[in-house]
């Protein structure tokens, strides 16, 4: 006999409302289903209503945590639409900001993961060290979180030469701290007991279900937009793509922590190789009819923007595919066969960001039924 354990829309393990339905036999999970759409905000429609310049700030608000990734992807796409080149210095500054954001995002995630397994001390320590990155972000962009530093054709604020020593000093501190955290996470008995061997996403499933980002890299799939489709300054910087073969929660922890080290490495190179030159290229407010795709490796995985212009100063259509959305199907192999106690940490293990995910939800207000749009219908709606 099975019974249903509902997780969400309101649940302390979820920071955002989303509904997960677990069919449970005793403590074992036998089936999993998900219903998204609780935080649908109509952002894609709103993007059509505003000018290209306004949209930067709107796209920044799709996700609070990976806001730099969103504006970078948006600006990239629009720059492709308009056919303009971003100056070198701006590309490097974007890279620095993207990597700082990755560090802070991974630290934030690691803290939450520690909290999910009841290790609140580690949670607080992760967040203490995350403050170091936020200070750097504030120094460079003027804001701790929502940086608002990317703009069409470049960046708004410069990394001044006097910032460089402070950046390098802080990165050194962070590197030491991260190494210690990796050490803790691979040796602490209670962490291993809760993370090793659970929520396993096999390599085949990761490929089949098109998982992205650290989730798929922890299953041994070697993909990273930064290397495979270099944008900004990533083509001129050497770095490794971190993968782990196991696919369990522990592998996801280790991948993210090692990515922090790699991000520190990238930021160092970018800061040292910062070329001279202007910060932004000129862009005309109106863009000729065209279409473009921009891809960015956000902290959670591949972030995709697709835009169509129609000759006015507003886009005809902007479509956003966030990494969490791509990772939702991979929940099923992670959960089925596991136990109820694993739900929070496995849910957290893909680093879900639901507000970014929810953009299309069709609910019939009379019957309350949800409807799935066919590909044809979507195509028709495009125009």
């Amino acid at each position: 006999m099975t019974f249903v354990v509902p997780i969400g829309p309101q649940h302390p393990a979820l920071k955002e409302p989303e509904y997960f339905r677990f069919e449970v036999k005793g403590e074992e999970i036998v089936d999993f289903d998900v219903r998204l759409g609780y935080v649908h905000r109509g952002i894609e429609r709103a993007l059509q209503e505003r000018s290209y310049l306004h949209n930067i700030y709107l796209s920044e608000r799709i996700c609070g945590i990976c806001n730099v990734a969103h504006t970078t992807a948006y600006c990239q796409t629009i720059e492709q639409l308009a056919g303009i080149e971003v100056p070198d210095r701006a590309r490097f500054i974007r890279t620095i900001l993207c990597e700082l954001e990755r560090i802070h995002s991974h630290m934030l995630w690691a803290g939450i993961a520690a909290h999910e397994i009841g290790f609140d001390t580690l949670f607080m320590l992760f967040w203490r060290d995350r403050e170091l990155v936020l200070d750097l972000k504030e120094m460079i962009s003027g804001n701790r979180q929502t940086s608002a530093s990317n703009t069409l054709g470049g960046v708004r604020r410069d990394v001044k030469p006097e910032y460089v020593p402070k950046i390098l000093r802080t990165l050194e501190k962070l590197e030491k701290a991260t190494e210690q955290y990796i050490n803790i996470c691979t040796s602490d008995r209670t962490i291993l007991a809760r993370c090793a061997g659970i929520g396993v996403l096999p390599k085949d499933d990761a490929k089949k279900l098109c998982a992205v980002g650290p989730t798929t890299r922890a299953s041994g799939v070697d993909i990273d937009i930064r290397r495979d489709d270099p944008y900004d300054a990533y083509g001129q910087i050497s770095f490794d793509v971190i993968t782990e073969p196991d696919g369990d929660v522990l592998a996801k922890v280790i991948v993210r922590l090692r990515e922090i080290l790699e991000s520190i490495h990238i930021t160092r190179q970018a800061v040292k190789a910062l070329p001279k030159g202007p910060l932004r290229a000129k862009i005309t407010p109106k863009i000729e009819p065209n279409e473009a795709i921009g891809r960015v490796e956000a902290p959670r995985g591949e972030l995709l923007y697709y835009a169509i212009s129609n000759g006015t100063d507003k886009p005809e259509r902007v479509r956003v595919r966030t990494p969490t959305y791509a990772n939702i199907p991979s929940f099923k192999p992670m959960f089925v066969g596991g136990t109820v106690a694993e739900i929070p940490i496995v849910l957290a293990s893909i680093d879900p960001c639901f507000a970014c995910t929810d953009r299309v939800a069709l609910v019939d207000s009379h019957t309350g039924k949800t409807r799935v749009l066919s590909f044809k219908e979507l195509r028709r709606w495009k125009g």
Partner: protein
Amino acid sequence: MMEVVNFILGSLVFPGLLFASLIGLLYIGIDRKVTAHMQHRIGPPIWQEFLDVGKLLSKEDITPAAAQSPVFTAAPLVALGAVVTVMLLLPINSAQPALTLVADLIVIIYLLNIPAICMMLGGYSSGSPFGAAGAGRYVVQLFSYEFIFILAIIAAVVRVGSLGLPTIVGYQAQQGWLVLDWRLLPAVIAALIAAQGKLLRVPFDIPEAHTEIVAGPLTEYSGPRLAIWRLAYDVETIVVAGFLAALFFGGPTAYLIGNIQIPGVVDFLIKTLAIVLLTTTLRNIMARLRIDQALKFFWTYVALLAIISLVLVLVVP
């Protein structure tokens, strides 16, 4: 007449409800402050627990229709009553407790289980899946730690040869603390770990793991009833600490420093605080286990410690 007045004073003021509540709330406040410092936070003031319980007492009581039953209401009160009764049986100011019984250890073991049983009843009667899940986990956890707790106590009982707590305290006053006896050391460690499970502290806060099952059995409790639960938990903490202090750490001893007589209650407070702080440290350096892992851990390593101790006490003269 005098006896009745004494009993009422004993159960309501010292060492009963009032004293136990004040110390319990204060100790949990200290526990929260120390936790905060360990986690690199500033933390609440140490009287925060008083404010929290006071606030809860003044709040509206919202009980879902499915939970409205006498069991749901009685559970926190019975739990509080049980732990306050243990307070009367503990040696607090001297070896002699407020209430003397013949075999008080057995009564204490029973009474210390009542909060756990009440919590299960409260959880099952709350009509919430989280309450039921928490209660189910609590049953498993109870069967994990309780046997070990009792084994550790039996080791001490065999060593002293008495089922009376006053006798054990008296024995320690002459022969030295039981914790210093190498044969009993494994039992002390096992009892401390079992106490961690009894007090639902990390890594054994499984029945109320709040990221997994909201608040477990306490999910549907609110307002005054939740305040009574908090109070019961806080008093339980000091009672368990006081019990271990009396059993293994010499109990309350009066000292003479210079010409000033330090009453035994000061010693009691210091020892219980030390034990509470030990559990605080443990709960801050670990992650929560899964219920099956906790069960396995208790029945292998911890049970082994307790059994070794019992065998040593029985075999080595």
